[in-house]
């Protein structure tokens, strides 16, 4: 596996500049990589993730499209079957609802349905997540819908350097990959990112910090809230970044829970049938006898994304995560 911090020549990047840098590098490396989406050309995309690429690569590589999410995913499948590697920008994950038909019928299903004969090497970059107050359909975390779909890989980076490795791998993968970019994290912080090209595995979660008392699982922006919450407790907390959501990298989670005996899962997806329900079920199935407390979920609520004033209460906060950790640590059977 690539050891990011051992690669020479680093440059400070935030999440969005890391995405732009990676797209540029992959487009330079492979002429079949083409980015497509709404306003991504001269405008550079709603979050400016493709800024400068149109000038550098031209309209055949950086393709502005109409607002046709369903049509566009089908187009990408057709291109992928003809040797191209389209990278679609889905402005918001909430806009994927329009594209659900092509996503299921053709994109996700094709490789298995054709007995492995057809491949669909494409990437969907979709922004997601709350915290910048844009209200419904621009904030939701619906990764569970994606995870319920066989044939699609789903990854969610939480740092710029990780974003680079995962996005490069997503683009080079012969499978369709949904790459989730959290809008609140886009410009939240910078870190050194190696300039050399590298990939990270698409099916491995990341150990953020080792500990003995409790396993804390999160991804995306919630990972940062979880790190903050863990730092405010006196416990020794093991933190896992579940950056690989589909397929879910469960083995390290089970190993960790068998060591700590306690687990809290944090997500800003809705609670019912959310990703936490699946992770919790797997722990109950395969690590029950090691548990010292029931697995706890700290999640958003089963409503559509709420209005400005109550967004902060809807999303898990470091305070709510800390309370969840303490409840599990103090639990008595």
């Amino acid at each position, binding site marked *: 596996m690539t050891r990011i911090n051992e690669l020479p020549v680093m440059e400070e990047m935030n999440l969005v500049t890391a995405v732009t840098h990676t797209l540029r590098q992959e487009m330079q490396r492979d002429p079949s990589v083409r980015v497509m989406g709404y306003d991504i050309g001269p405008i550079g995309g709603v979050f400016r993730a493709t800024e400068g690429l149109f000038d550098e690569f031209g309209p055949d590589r950086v393709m502005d499209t109409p607002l046709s999410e369903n049509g566009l995913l089908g187009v990408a499948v057709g291109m992928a079957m003809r040797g191209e590697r389209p990278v679609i920008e889905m402005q918001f994950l909430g806009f994927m609802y329009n594209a659900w038909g092509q996503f299921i019928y053709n994109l996700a299903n094709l490789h298995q*349905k054709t007995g492995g004969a057809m491949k669909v090497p494409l990437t969907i970059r979709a922004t997601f997540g709350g915290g910048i107050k844009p209200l419904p359909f621009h904030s939701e975390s619906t990764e569970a819908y994606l995870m319920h779909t066989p044939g699609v890989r789903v990854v969610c980076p939480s740092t710029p350097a990780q974003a680079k490795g995962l996005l490069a791998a997503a683009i080079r993968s012969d499978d369709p990959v949904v790459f989730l970019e959290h809008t609140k994290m886009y410009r939240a912080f910078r870190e050194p990112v190696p300039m050399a090209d590298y990939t990270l595995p698409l099916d491995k979660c990341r150990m953020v910090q080792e500990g003995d008392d409790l396993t804390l699982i999160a991804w995306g922006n919630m990972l940062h809230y979880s790190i903050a919450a863990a730092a405010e407790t006196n416990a020794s907390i093991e933190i896992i970044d579940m950056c690989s959501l589909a397929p879910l990298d469960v083995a390290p989670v089970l190993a960790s829970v068998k060591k700590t005996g306690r687990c809290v899962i944090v997500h800003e997806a809705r609670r019912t049938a959310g990703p936490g329900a699946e992770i919790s079920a797997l722990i109950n199935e395969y690590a029950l006898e090691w548990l010292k407390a029931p697995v706890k979920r700290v999640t958003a609520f089963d409503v559509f994304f709420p209005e400005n004033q109550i967004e902060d209460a809807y999303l898990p906060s470091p305070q709510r995560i800390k309370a969840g950790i303490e409840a599990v640590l103090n639990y008595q059977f």
Partner: protein
Amino acid sequence: MIAPPPSGPVPYARDFAHRLLTDMLRIRRMEEKSAELYGAGKIRGFLHLYIGEEAVAVGALHALQAEDNLVTTYREHGHALVRGMSMDVILAEMYGKREGCSLGRGGSMHLFDKRTRLFGGNAIVAGGLPVAAGLALADKIQKTSRITACFFGDGAVAEGAFHESMNLAALWQLPVLFCCENNLYAMGTALENSESQTDLCAKAASYRMPTIKVDGMDVVAVHEATRQAQARVRAGEGPLFIEYQTYRFRAHSMFDAELYRSKAEVEEWKTRGPVHTFTARLKQEGKLSEEEFLALDAQVNTEVAAAVAFAEAGTWEPVEHMLADVYTPAGSQP
């Protein structure tokens, strides 16, 4: 525009005329046998027969080049066969056998074949149209001389994917030949009960796309119109919409009591059946003798019998393969 019916004698040499007739017969006999096999429980699930519409697939696909891409629907056994997939493999796939084109996983509605550039049947009405636009976009960017032929029925025009694909193809001037098989009924709903505008060419024209309407029961008319249409698309004129006015003689699927149309209507259309009218025409023009016809038919029946034997002898994919091919082998760490 409406393509004028070709006047005069069949404008083809004997060999090619016989090829057209033979291919229509191959579809007809293969599907008659499929219906029988369905009744016997050999083919399961659903089965959508093309009987009555053979002139469209045969006339149109013989106007394409081998390098062209093809996208089609769930009523696609005929398209796959004319395109060059072997009847053996088609029937094996319909049986669900491993010797089928997709290991039996796709079945009747999802015939795929890389070799003949068949990029799929599609169970979803209008499901293939955006994919066809994507194939064509790749060819336009790669500067090949390929075109993509995309077949769909009249029911597809009610779907959003149809309109998105029309717009994308016209906006980007993609080399797509949109081949609409208008058989007047989307499953059990007549066109006038589902569309505010029943002139399908008018829909395509609203995307500033040239259109052609042609008698889909006449293999010569279909072939001539498609030949001209594909040449225009290949020349870089952008997409073109061609409406084949046709009719299916059989029910929508094997579970259809056909309450939506009268027997008299079906009988009326059957008088225009593409196989017997073309046969009669060739005989009348002295391009086919009864002996030749009987020999062709016998040869087709032999092919069908061999295909059934092939499918029967096929094997089932083992249960252990159930989880295979969800992802590509190296997909996680490329």
